[in-house]
């Protein structure tokens, strides 16, 4: 107990006591002297104490399991700790540290050195008689080697064979299924509603898989299916008409929420607004004996975003 008391007193003396500099000030100084700023010094000590408290708080909050809003408390503790630390630095900078104004000449360029370097380079090649030829051959050798070193990068993907872009899992007779894998009956497709369909038994995470199915007229012939992937930038067509078109505008539109390309399902997926340059590929449908929707072939064109020459290609299974 008494030892603790002694420590406490010692700490207080250290903290508050007036310290006398034992050394005599040297006559020549680099940094000019400043007068003591005890209040600012005390403020800095208090701020450091507060930073310590915030640090402790962070550890405590971390340790308590059943605390609600832990992220918020952790952020508050850490943020405050840094804020107080910043404040301490600012007090030190503005009140405690001598701020001198120095002037220094800007560096200049070195024309003599430049000349010397040029001379060294020039004079070093006196043994060469066919300088330009050697330079040319050397450049060619290094350039080729550089290209050779880059060649393995082609292994990253099928860069030279772009046929993969046109492949889709759809083929004649493949059933359309909904998100839960159930077949979709043509009669269940209602007007003014929007259905997503996938190819039965195929990978859904392919750009050629997802479809939008909508009704544009009565009966079996009124159901149409399009690729759900926008021909502009490859996002999924997730909107049916809104918010691009006010209710007063005639006809519904399939709309991509990324850049609002809008396609008319009643006119073979024609672009009616937005940046898309190509109609939405349409999937021909047929209806089987159970009344369920099946593909009657592949899409009317390549699915997804365009590339140079896209119009010369067709979708293939």
């Amino acid at each position, binding site marked *: 107990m008494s030892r603790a008391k002694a420590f406490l007193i010692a700490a207080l003396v250290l903290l508050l006591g007036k310290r006398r500099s034992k050394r005599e000030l040297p006559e020549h100084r680099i940094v000019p002297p400043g007068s003591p700023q005890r209040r600012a010094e005390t403020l800095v000590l208090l701020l450091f104490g507060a930073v310590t408290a915030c640090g402790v708080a962070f550890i405590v909050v971390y340790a308590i399991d059943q605390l609600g809003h832990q992220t918020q408390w952790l*952020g508050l503790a850490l943020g405050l700790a840094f804020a107080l630390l910043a404040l301490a630095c600012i007090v030190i900078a503005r009140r405690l540290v001598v701020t001198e104004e*120095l*002037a220094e000449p800007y560096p200049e360029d070195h024309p003599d050195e430049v000349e010397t370097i040029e001379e060294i380079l020039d004079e070093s090649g006196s043994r060469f008689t066919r300088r330009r030829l050697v330079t040319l051959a050397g450049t060619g050798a290094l350039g080729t080697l550089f290209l050779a070193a880059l060649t393995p990068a082609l292994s990253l*993907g099928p860069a030279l064979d772009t046929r993969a872009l046109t492949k889709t899992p759809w083929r004649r007779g493949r059933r359309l299924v909904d998100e839960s894998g159930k077949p979709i009956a043509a009669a269940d497709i209602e007007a003014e509603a929007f259905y997503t369909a996938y190819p039965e038994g195929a990978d859904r995470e392919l750009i050629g898989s997802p479809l939008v199915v909508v009704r544009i007229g009565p009966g079996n012939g009124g159901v149409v299916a399009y690729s759900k992937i926008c021909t502009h930038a490859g996002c999924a067509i997730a909107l049916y008409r809104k918010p691009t078109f006010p209710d007063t505008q005639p006809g519904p539109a399939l709309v991509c929420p990324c850049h609002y390309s809008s396609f008319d399902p009643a006119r073979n997926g024609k672009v009616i607004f937005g940046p898309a340059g190509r109609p939405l590929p349409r999937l021909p449908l047929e209806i089987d004996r159970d009344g369920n929707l099946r593909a009657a072939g592949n899409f009317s064109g390549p699915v997804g975003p365009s590339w140079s020459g896209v119009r010369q290609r067709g979708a293939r299974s």
Partner: protein
Amino acid sequence: MIRRLVRFVDQRAGAAPFVRKALRYVFPDHWSFLLGEVALYCFILLVATGVYLTLFFEDSRAQTVYHGPYKPLRGESMSRAYESVLHLSFDVKAGLLMRQTHHWAANVFLAAIVLHVLRVFFTGAFRKPRDLTYLIGLAMLFTAFLEGYLGYSLVDDLLSGMGLAIGYAVALSLPVIGANLGLLLWGGPFPGSPSFFPRMYIAHVLIFPLIIAALLTLHLVLVASRHHTQFRESPKTTEKQVVGIPTFPGQAPRSLGLMFAVFAVLFLLGGLVQINPIWLWGPYHVGEATNGAQPDWYLGWLIGALRLVPGFDLTIGGYTLVPNPFWGGALFPIVILLVLALWPWAERKVTGDDAFHNLLERPRDNAWRTALGAAFLTWIFLGFMSGSADRVTVWLGLDYAAQIWAYRVLIWVVPVLVFFIVRRTCRELVAWERIQSDVDLPRRHVE
């Protein structure tokens, strides 16, 4: 004690002269010089929080089913990448704090760089001998755009996937080589081969940060070797002489204070202000998208440009030469980069001014540059604004198509107006100052 330590280092590294010089390096004082520093401190915090995130992230698009504590997503099929970020956000203590702070730091990082570039541009700080420093800064800015994009693409929530789909479309839209490049980068048609996420991951956590760190080092070395620019504030500040406070003791606590203040703001934001609530977006699947999707702010100009371009692919006799996303997604940023990068050389050519410039110009001192810069900035900013037209439709009920048509006109008209207004303003300000100084003759004589 200090002497012994310094001697130890000096005898082994011969560093004493360098350290002495560094301690007395002169920093001119102006608030706008701090913007670059803010970016630097954001980068430090990005690396620190980013390292923590890597310890939990899984770079795989393999599908799995969620069984974690967030009830609305239980039983949903999602990628392991997205699941690992949900785990980090809900199950790892301090995980969400680190993730949100990382995301906020990225946003502030880009904001600080953009403001820094604007400061450098409008004060002519890019002029010789600092044109190379400026180019390296631009390279960092554009690397940072890509780095940020990769960062939020890795999460594989719905926003990530939509962003990646757009990136893929832009890659595919490059004339002639697009299809090859897209397939190469993604390892196959979108959403890519199983290698794609690991590739993106290594690019985000190693390759791009290394590039930024290397450029940053070079940038700072060049800044220090030519010294800072300064405004003409007193007769002592001249083209030949830099005036300011030394690194130590004057600048060090100021810079440290700024660093801690940046950390404070970012951790407070990360803890208290929600950013990118990935659990609300849900997992990405190729066949899904959502309305109201917006990228991080620093890519807003690109989504705006993609939305503004009228719907056409450039075709020649039925052959598609340039698909549509090229204009807004590739040409627009390339033009901006080229204009910014070539500006110092273009200005030198036009003005014939090949001298060293250590003194900064105030924007009004160079009416032509300021006006052209303001017009250029307006052009980009209107692209940015048009990217939010869909939100304006939701909030204010303005017709979306009408807004886009308005922007298609305004983006060419307003910059021209801005040019003339700004040029006139600069000239008037200078003229007004001249009148003031004629009245106030004594002050004029001091200069």
